[in-house]
């Protein structure tokens, strides 16, 4: 009954379970009618458990949309690379000369071998295949093959793209965050991000030079649940005081004791004790749903204290941007941004999680945080404490989330009900045609809005 720890379900650098090489049109014929699965206030459970729908999501959402590749500071020098996946495709982000960054399919055109063999590394001047030493420039074009005379009078042609490492159809960056799309056509990155680009603005504008550096550590945690469980949980404001009750009360207890004994408590206890915040306080926040599936929860809890470290940070920002712009930046009050389909960004603390769906019931998450360039070290330490307490593999928060999602996935496989309810505050959303908005932080608007986009993605040609 025991599974090996390094499960054979995760093949290194090709994190998928089922290989289906099918025409997307064939998939649509086999999948159930998508429109029938999604009602305005509830969704059929097949959306979460049906492998045919999962295949459709891979082809129509993940392998078409803009997917997060990484941050440009992950690949600082020419030849640096970092692997990631788009849908089922093993890709690699490579730094070229100067500022250029390329995203390639990690696949040698000769015999199909994955050229980059480790999760991240440095290829030097050229990407070299370990099998026959085919060499590629950082942009994937062919540099050299061994014993080239053997290709005389054959159909081999150095200039033919079939003999290059294939690049992703489109690559673009927003404020250093690199995205790739495998679809030739579609909205530009900026157009697609729309108002959700505030996730990256809210991160970067807290630096006096508008930049961050990635902290070079990426935790990977596997969720035994459908990727949409994660996306729906991030902006779910009812669950924190329930799911994380044990951690909230435990932390509040110790926090009070420390305050009694020492006069004040370390700031980072708040990250855990905040989970005792009652429902009605969460309900005072606001939620927004945007085209393409992005959603935002606004109104962060008390992260603008007046302590000396915060004031020093504000002075640094005021010197860089002027007082008025500084106030605009710090008044954004973003709690959480979902950049659909795969990013959860907590901008006030520079945390980012990217999810990679492996199958209908398994999802890989990659957990990062960033350092603001040019701010006092004390400010970075706040971000670091959050990363260590909430986002590490020893998290006292995500332990209970993962449990819920696992049990949710099991529950939805049963015949004990067909529908997933998203009724909370339905009918109280304001809808201007493009943006959904609720003044109830606990509204299930984010889920309804995501499924509205989901239908559009899956029914597109």
């Amino acid at each position, binding site marked *: 009954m*025991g599974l090996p720890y390094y499960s054979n379900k995760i093949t290194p650098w090709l994190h998928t379970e089922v290989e289906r090489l099918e025409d997307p049109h064939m998939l649509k014929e086999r999948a159930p009618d998508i429109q029938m699965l999604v009602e305005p206030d509830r969704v059929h459970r097949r959306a979460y458990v049906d492998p045919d729908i999962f295949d459709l999501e891979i082809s129509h959402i993940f392998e078409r949309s803009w997917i997060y590749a990484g941050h440009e500071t992950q690949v600082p020098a020419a030849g640096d690379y970092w692997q990631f996946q788009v849908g089922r495709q093993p890709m690699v982000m490579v730094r070229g000369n100067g500022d250029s960054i390329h995203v390639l399919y990690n696949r040698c055109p000769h015999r199909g071998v994955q050229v980059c063999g480790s999760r991240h590394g440095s290829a030097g001047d050229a990407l070299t295949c370990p099998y026959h030493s085919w060499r590629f420039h950082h942009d994937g074009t062919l540099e050299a093959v061994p014993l080239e005379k053997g290709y005389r009078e054959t159909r081999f042609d150095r200039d033919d793209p079939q003999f290059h490492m294939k690049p992703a159809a489109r690559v673009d960056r927003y404020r250093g965050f690199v995205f790739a799309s495998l679809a030739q056509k579609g909205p530009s990155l900026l157009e697609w991000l729309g108002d959700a680009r505030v996730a990256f603005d809210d991160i970067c504008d807290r630096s006096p030079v508008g930049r961050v550096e990635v902290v070079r550590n990426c935790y990977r945690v596997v969720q035994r649940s459908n990727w949409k469980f994660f996306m729906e949980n991030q902006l779910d404001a009812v669950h924190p005081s329930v799911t994380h009750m044990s951690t909230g009360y435990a932390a509040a207890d110790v926090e009070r004791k420390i305050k009694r004994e020492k006069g004040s408590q370390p700031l980072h206890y708040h990250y855990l004790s905040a989970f005792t915040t009652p429902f009605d306080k969460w309900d005072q926040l606001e939620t927004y749903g945007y085209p393409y599936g992005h959603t935002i929860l606004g109104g962060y809890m008390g992260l603008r204290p007046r302590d000396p470290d915060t004031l020093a940070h504000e002075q640094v920002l005021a010197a860089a941007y002027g007082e008025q712009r500084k106030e605009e930046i710090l008044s954004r009050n973003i709690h959480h941004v979902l950049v659909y389909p795969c990013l959860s960004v907590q901008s006030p603390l520079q945390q980012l999680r990217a999810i990679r769906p492996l199958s209908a019931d398994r999802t890989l998450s990659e957990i990062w945080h960033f350092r603001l360039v040019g701010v006092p070290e004390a400010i970075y330490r706040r971000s670091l404490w959050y990363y*260590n307490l909430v986002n590490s593999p020893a*998290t006292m928060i995500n332990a209970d989330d993962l*449990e819920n999602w696992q049990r949710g996935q099991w529950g939805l496989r049963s015949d004990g009900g067909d529908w997933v309810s998203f009724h909370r505050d339905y009918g109280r959303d304001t809808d201007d045609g493009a943006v959904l908005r609720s003044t109830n932080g606990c509204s299930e608007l984010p889920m309804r809005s995501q499924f509205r986009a989901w239908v559009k993605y899956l029914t597109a040609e």
Partner: protein
Amino acid sequence: MSTSKHKSTSAARPAAARSQAGGAASKGAPPPARRTAARKKSAARGSKRAAAPPAAAARARGRTAAAVRTAPDAGTLFHDVSQFLYRQSDCLDAKRWQDYIDLFDDAGLYWMPPGLEYTTWEGMPAIFIEDKDLMTVRMKRIQHPNAWSQQAEWATNHVVSNVVIEDVAADGAEVRVRSRFHMLELRRDDVRHFAGTYRHHLLRGSDGTLRIKLQRVDMVNAQAPYEYVLQAWV
């Protein structure tokens, strides 16, 4: 977290460097003869520092591994430290969380870095970096009646072995020890397996009792994908 000025010193050096150090596990004390000559020179130059007798100087810098082995109480020390390590993991397997926390010094730390290359936790990501207060939060969370993920059956079994005393302070009040661990964890129907190296910096009281000043845990699968998370110390 309580202020901690503990610097991770020899306990934090990567395993590779450690094995290259071979038998001399101390912090590189030069042989007494060279030091005696140096002290004579500095005395001749009229240095203000009194030239200490060579034997005392060697003791003051701690013992080499050879000295550890041949010291009169080496057998007792090894026995005591080994038993201490076994009893520590017994606490985890029996879920005696307060007993586990009580093994740490008041300013003690439990540290699991993300990789071998980390030489400090200050300003660095860490999988665990907990003082006794944070450990108490973790314990209270696990014991809370509404710790939902605790509803699943969850059991661990540790084996601690390969105990090597790396260094002993001259007065015997501090001991550095490394050991290996394997932990098997059952959660519902799944078995997970974790393994790695412990490095303990122990304080030894005059009555021989041991407490943990710093425990560094280098898990061999620290960077591999986690099928669930780590709810308790490993």
